[in-house]
């Protein structure tokens, strides 16, 4: 016997975390992934109730949820590509002008964060006609 409430708790936690991710993140792709995670929570609920009642209706519904999720992902990727082509960015805040004109923009100004790139070390070729000097570091890397 499996405790039903445990699965409902895990499903609701997944649903709420997906909702938080959908509300806060600004990358269009992360938004879609968060929506898919909300669907995971709902599917978990349906399957748990299916096992609880010992009939297949919840599992059949989950199959339909899977179908709709696949359709949604396809359409969403097409839309994301179109939006990217127009704005050259995946930022969802660029599209906040679609709202009503008299409602002020919900997002605040933020300082630009320098994206930390790791310092890259390129291999240096020795000029022709000179014997290469083997350093410890290069020997260690190879």
């Amino acid at each position, binding site marked *: 016997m*499996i*405790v*039903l409430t*445990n699965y409902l*708790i*895990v499903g*609701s*936690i*997944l649903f709420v*975390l*997906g909702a938080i*991710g959908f509300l*806060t*993140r*600004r*990358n269009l*792709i*992360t938004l879609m*992934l*968060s929506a*898919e*995670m909300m669907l*995971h929570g709902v*599917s*978990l609920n349906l399957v748990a109730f299916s*096992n*609880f*009642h*010992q*009939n*297949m*209706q919840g*599992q*059949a519904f*989950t*199959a*339909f949820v*899977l179908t*709709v*999720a*696949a*359709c949604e*992902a*396809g*359409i969403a*990727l*097409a*839309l*994301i*590509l*179109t939006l*990217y082509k127009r704005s050259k960015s*995946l*930022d*969802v805040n660029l599209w906040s002008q679609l709202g009503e004109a008299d409602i002020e923009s*919900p*997002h605040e100004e*933020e300082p630009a*964060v320098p*994206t930390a790139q790791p310092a890259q070390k390129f291999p240096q070729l020795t000029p022709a006609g000179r014997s290469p000097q083997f350093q410890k570091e290069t020997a260690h890397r190879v």
Partner: protein
Amino acid sequence: MQWLKEHWLLVLPMVLGAFAVARLMPKGEPRSSLLARLVGLTAIGIVGGSLLQPTGSVLNDALFFLFAGVAVLAAILMITHRNPAYSALWFAVVTLAVSGLFLLQSAPFLASATVIVYAGAIIVTFLFVLMLAQQAGTTNYDQNSRQPVVATFTGFVLLGALLFVLLPSKEQAADCPLTGFVSLAPKVHSVAQSPDQSSTPQSTSATTAENFGTMRGLGRSLFGDYLFAVELAGTLLLVASIGAIVITPKRSSGKL
């Protein structure tokens, strides 16, 4: 105050979890998040240790806690990671853990279908789009989430309300220790023994208890009870694929 004293096991992990998630959300410069991680793990531990009830079967419990813990941890990491590519990979981990939970609930076909559809198709195409569109790694909008404190507060208020409804009170738990439900659903055994008298919609005899959990039962249910819905779902897939082809920018109208 009395209410708070009775339900502190529910309120405490909500507060701790909200603090941890709001703190872990990317906002500005990367900062040390050791405290937030510890607090989040504490919240998950409180939920796992006190709110979830063990069933008594050691193997079932071990698998359930493993899959549930991995699912929740990977979900938190997914919504808080600064790099969207890593978010997609953590979402793959969530998908695998959820399909493990499906297996525990005797839905093997759905587990494999979820892995194939989500991890095999959706995440891969998302990663392709990510590689196509955002080659610079993490960007400015990934580092600054939008109103993280308010959104996290809202989400955890919703979660607290859901858990407050879901968790049985003490007298209910004494009545029905295994399911925790007394009012929502009929007892399992009565449903299993007399499927015809249940108040659910009419289902064919093949979809009842003896075929439960098998692919035969699911197929009979899908193509018997839900035949028209399956046809509609197929039409929806066709329309969605046509729509995706139409919406996607053409190569002739400019470089992507």
